């Protein structure tokens, strides 16, 4: 009896054990992560293309924002700003780009620009899958998406070529089968950029969700107010094209492209901004997303995209605008007075009677202290109404109409069309109440155009590239020509990048 009971127990327990063993566990071991989407679950619907498209913009924003590099590359080097006490910024300003400060490890690393390129390549390779899987994804939607992605990829390459010169050319994602590539000649890169931009421009609408023939209906079911100044438009592409052409020295095309922008500005709802105060107002040109931001990358405060770092305000603002005793960089009083020499300039001018600055809330404030504050961009929190918290949400504006007008003037001047060049220059001079450029006044036209750019666009990341173009035109500064001819206008490549890719060599100037 006892024995039989024992045997029965044994059988039962063994059976249970065996059941446990065989119903093993492979099924339980398949878990989808909540923080990532595996390839098998992506590129299924228009939501995926939207996420990937917006992600590419986000990567472009990250590339230009990291370490404030938009200004490090474009504004600081040999520009009008002086470092208060940060030795790393001082090194950037003086062009000692191989200095050993931690900042330079970030600035010399081009990884984030290639992330844009890679994301764009993946998009272009995979977007067809969505087209197949999702009937709601229309041809037109896809065409506009592709145009934007090509625009962003080309824009990222433009930055790569203008900051580092020759860079590796990667035209596909090589997903999972990466291979190191050598550098490609910058002219080839720039030619690619220009052709891609042109292709993108052809497909981009003038505006989104406004029944533009190239983009009918609400783009991704959002109204036009949502997209205004957020996505690349046809004119954005032409504006960047004008820059690409000018950088290549192809001023004829630069003229054509910039003229297209100026001629069609109304079709995108844009206008020259006559209100100088509005440009620098905390709730003005740089705040949020606006149609006059011809091409920019937004940081929407209301969407929690305001950040502590990566805005120009982080470097330039201080007491009394924010709670920070000294700015990192400033424009010296001597520079200000010599640059803004006209007593009528609405951006900054000295009252000839009182000797005091006329405007203390526009380009500069605290003029009378040893360290004036550059306050043209000051979107503190949402609209600057609360100075206590150094969170900024200003839009990173790559270009705006006034800038394109001056680029147009420059192109016209170089190709010898002085009359129209002067017209374009005077558009901006009129806006800012600076006396018109008059033929025969002895003023050099090229100098005048570049000086106007310097005044209008200070702090917007153009100064260094302007200087390069200026000296390429003028060819009268041997020191600068040496930089241009020896590759010194380009940045060194990060040691980390060189370690990873043995096919790359350091820019010889920095060896």
């Amino acid at each position, binding site marked *: 009896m006892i024995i039989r009971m024992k045997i029965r127990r044994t059988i039962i327990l063994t059976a249970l054990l065996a059941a446990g063993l065989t119903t093993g566990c492979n099924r339980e*071991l398949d878990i989808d992560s*909540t923080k990532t989407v595996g390839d098998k679950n992506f590129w299924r619907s228009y939501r995926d293309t939207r*996420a990937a498209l917006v992600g590419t913009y986000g990567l472009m924003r990250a590339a230009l924002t990291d370490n404030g590099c938009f200004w490090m590359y474009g504004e600081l080097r040999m520009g009008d700003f002086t470092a208060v006490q940060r030795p790393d910024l001082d090194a950037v300003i003086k062009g000692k780009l191989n200095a050993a400060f931690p900042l330079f490890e970030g600035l010399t690393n081009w990884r984030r620009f290639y*992330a844009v390129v*890679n994301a764009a390549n993946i998009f272009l390779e995979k977007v067809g899958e969505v087209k197949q899987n999702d009937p709601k994804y229309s041809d037109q939607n896809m065409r506009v998406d592709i145009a934007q992605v090509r625009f962003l990829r080309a824009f990222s390459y433009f930055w790569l070529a203008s900051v580092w010169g020759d860079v590796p050319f990667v035209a596909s994602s090589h997903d999972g089968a990466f291979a190191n590539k050598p550098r490609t000649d910058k002219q080839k890169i720039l030619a690619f950029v220009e052709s891609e931009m042109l292709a993108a421009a052809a497909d981009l609408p003038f505006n989104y969700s406004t029944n533009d023939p190239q983009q009918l209906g609400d783009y991704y079911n959002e109204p036009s107010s949502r997209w205004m100044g957020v*996505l690349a438009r046809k004119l954005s592409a032409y504006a960047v094209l004008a820059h690409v052409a000018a950088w290549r020295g192809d001023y004829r095309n630069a003229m054509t492209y910039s003229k297209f922008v100026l001629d069609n500005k109304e079709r995108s709802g844009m206008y020259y901004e006559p209100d100088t105060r509005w440009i620098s107002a905390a709730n003005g040109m740089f705040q949020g997303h606006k149609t006059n931001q011809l091409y920019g990358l937004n940081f929407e405060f209301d969407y929690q995209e305001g950040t502590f770092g990566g805005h120009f305000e982080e470097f330039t603002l201080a007491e009394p605008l924010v709670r920070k005793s000294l700015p990192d960089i400033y424009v010296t009083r001597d520079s200000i007075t010599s640059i803004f020499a006209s007593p009528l300039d609405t951006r900054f001018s000295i009252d000839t009677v009182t000797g005091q600055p006329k405007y203390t809330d526009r380009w500069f404030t605290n003029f009378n202290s040893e360290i004036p504050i550059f306050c043209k961009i000051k979107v503190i929190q949402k609209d600057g109404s609360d100075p206590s918290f150094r969170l900024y949400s200003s839009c990173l504006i790559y270009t705006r109409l006034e800038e394109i007008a001056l680029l147009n003037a420059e192109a016209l001047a170089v190709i010898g069309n002085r009359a129209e060049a002067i017209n374009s220059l005077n558009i901006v001079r009129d806006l800012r109440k600076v006396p018109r450029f008059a033929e025969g006044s002895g003023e050099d036209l090229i100098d005048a155009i570049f000086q106007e750019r310097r005044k209008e666009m200070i702090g917007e990341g153009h100064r260094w590239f302007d200087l390069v173009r200026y000296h390429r035109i003028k060819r009268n500064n041997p020191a600068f020509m040496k930089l241009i001819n020896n590759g010194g206008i380009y940045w060194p490549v990060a040691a980390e990048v060189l370690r990873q890719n043995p096919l790359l060599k350091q820019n010889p100037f920095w060896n």
Partner: protein
Amino acid sequence: MITPVRIYCTFLTVLCLQMSALGQSAGTKKAAGPQPDDEFPVGNGQKLAWKDTLLHKRSSSAVIATSGSKGRWASAPFASLPQLLKGNVAGLYVQEPSGEPGTELNMLIRGAAVPYTHRKNMFETQPLVVLDGIPLLSPHPFVYDIQKYSYTRQGGAFEMLNRIDVNDIASITVIKDGSESAIYGPRAVNGVIVVATKQATAKQNYIAVNSWFGWVQRPHVSTMNALTENNFRKPFYEKYGTAADLRKYPAFLRDSTNPAYYGPANWTDLYYRNAAVRGINASISGGYPRANFRLSIGNLRNANPADKAAMDRYTASFSINMMPLKWLTMSTLLNGARLERDRNTYLRDRFAEMRYLPDLVNPLSPNKDNYGRYRSEFDKSYDDNKANALAGFFRLKADVGEAISFTSQLSFDYTEDMRDMFFPGTLLEGNNFASNYVSYNQRIIFDNAAHFSTTWKGDHALRFDAGQSLQLDFYKYDYIYAYKGPNDRIKINQIDNNTQNPKAFPYQLIYKFLDKEKLRLSSLYGRLNYSFKQQVELSLLLRTDGSSNVQASSRWLLTPAVNVKWDAKPVLFKSSRMIDDIALFAGWGRVGRLLSTDRFAQGPQYTVDMSWSNEPVISSYAGISGLMRPYGYGYIGDGISWPYSDQFNAGLNVSLAKGRLTMNVGVYSKTDKNMLLNVPAYSDYGYSGLFANGMRVRNAGVDVSAAYQPLRPGNVIGWTASVAAGYNRNKLMALPGGLREITIGDRHLEVGRAIDQFWVLRNDGIYNSREEVPLHPVSKIPLNYRGIALEKGDPRWRDQNGDFVINDKDKVLTGHYLPVVSGSIGNDFTYGCFNFGFSLYAAFGRSVVNKAMADRFDFINRESSLDMNAVKEITFWMKTGRDGNYPTYNPWSSVVPYRTDQDLFLENGAFVKLRQVTIGYDVTKAGWWKRRKLKGPRNLYVYGNAANLLTFTPYSGGDPELVDFKGYDTGYGLPIPKTYTLGVKLEL
């Protein structure tokens, strides 16, 4: 998710304890099945010659029996298991980066297989702690992914091993050999610490109380004020400063009449204090042979003399064993704890939590009056840190005759960690800050096992165990922080339940995060044990594990382990009177290593990764979430497979001269293979790196522990001298993809070299003039640092490759941030009913970068920008280190002369510490007590203890133990306090 119908299998670890508690015969115990620790004579009523010594038998696993109530172990005032073990087990290195009560500690058994490039890596090298058969959860480091600064882990950041009350521990077994730990599966890849709690005593009811109190002593520090700092900086300005530099002289040093900075530096009166500590634990056990129980409750307060930091712990443990049928045993355990922390008030940690830096021009004042005003503002803040832990099991064991038994167990572990904080606007330029963090982790384990054992002809014994288990882990956190509440009286960021709108804080400044991870581990194993005459023992283990974190194509890993033990005494030294016992053992085992996150199972994937430096949590553009490849995190491709560790070990155990000298020597070589590494690569595709298998790291070394009793046991005077020491070297054998070297941040890994080395330039002094800088013989270009010509006042760095450029190629790998040798020496004396003991804890062959000193000299760079480097704590006003050891470089130079990647600040970090001194008096043994023939107390013992008394070190900075995971002494970390306690133990 959990299917209760299904029955899974188990192996048991401490069943023997229960069985013995139930008064079973030794024979039953033998049949009890695969208990990984049942080779060890623990808790089994085994007589221990000296209760505090380490025991080894036929294995190099160290067993510490704390069941004895006297001596050093039992009277240590240490709150946590790692602190208790520190230095006492050969091959186990415990590092305390801070003496702050309740903070995370690091344990390493036989070195680290993972190079430390981020704090996260620490979590990958911690051993598994098994509490009464329950493999305890360890925290998941995934919250680091959203942190802007990684100084401390978000949330309460508790050392969860504080949950175990030392008073409840019967024994601790540290399993170091892979061949032994393999039975615990992949979680055991870094070794196992098996904790057995005290069990019910069947025969009589039993009450035990241990109570102690004491204080931590305020340390002696020499303070300084702005005058000292001013004098320190003066030579730099005189030698290199320009008029412009002088104009930028810091405001707080400029005005020598300012009492805030030039007044008396007496901040220490507010910062340090003598603080009380205490502990009490009471337990009761009782019952009958077929049903018994034990209940224990305890409270402990641990404190640090600095910064009012403290921890409170409340513990409760309950176990019950029943035999409803003669062949069926039911056991249940519940072990819970609550921890509460009062944390430090470091500015750095506060700013890191807030992700925001105020203007830092004026540091905290060294003067008590000013500093006191700051502290009183700080006291208006709110910082509440709590953690709860509950582990338990329900276990059934069925004995089907003499030979076969089955066990079935459901066990769980649950931990939660909460932090609520609020900082008033007065601390941050008018911006207040509130944050709430809640995380919980849970583990549920189904275990089933079958055991079969038989003997024949008396000489041969065979045992076979087979089992299966399924472990379900879940990790989750919710974190929310918000800025700029309406005023400082509203300290809670309330959300309206209906509308989900915030009630007080602006919605644009409320940031929410949640993340969760699931990990499932399914295992099957079988083990065969054969022993001959109890002299030779052979065991063979085969197991297979499937992890949900590994991609389906390579999900299962088969791992074998073999063990041989030979008792050599009967064969070789049968007649020797000198040798009492000698055993030799050897083993080889393969153990899988779990992948840390569920991302790896996904293969190529899309995620949110559009942030930039210092803004880690950007997730949208134009308010729309974007998805992209994990560019910043690193590319994860297909084909990521299991890493595993191949571990070989051998050793011997000797007992000589009637037990006067016992010694255990273990040698090992463990090679971690196929390890996953984020290899920095493919920047040209946008990636920071690519996760690839293939790193191979070998750790090899020797562990020695010995105890010597010069006097015969049982004498009036007893003396035991013991030593435990571990020697460990690691070597990088291979990198993924056949790479020879890689650089990750400031870490450099080179095949053939150790993984824990510093990568630095050799410093040979200073160039006193430009003429001293050597010129390239051909080009006549002066020696330069990455293209910057060296000047007067720059360091004389050695140009290792002679190319007249100082760059990474001139850096050398040197030093180790992990010790080559660590261990302790103990001496314990008894005289009648007195005992006295002390222990020295030591680590050698480790180096420390004195970053605190480098920072002090690098004041120009540190003060120029508004970032974390510019933060000066109150401890800035403390004199440490020797200024005179360093040349006077030009601090303005763009080569950053006082950089930490040079050997100027690399120092020998060896130390010897007098860690513990104990004296005790056993009242119940005293003659005068015995004469009274009192019936009540079975045992009455009073003791005193002093801990962390002295440190001997060549290191010039502060405590060489207080370094971060990279071996940098950043000057942070509260002191490991001198603690004095008095206690009494009573058993009824």
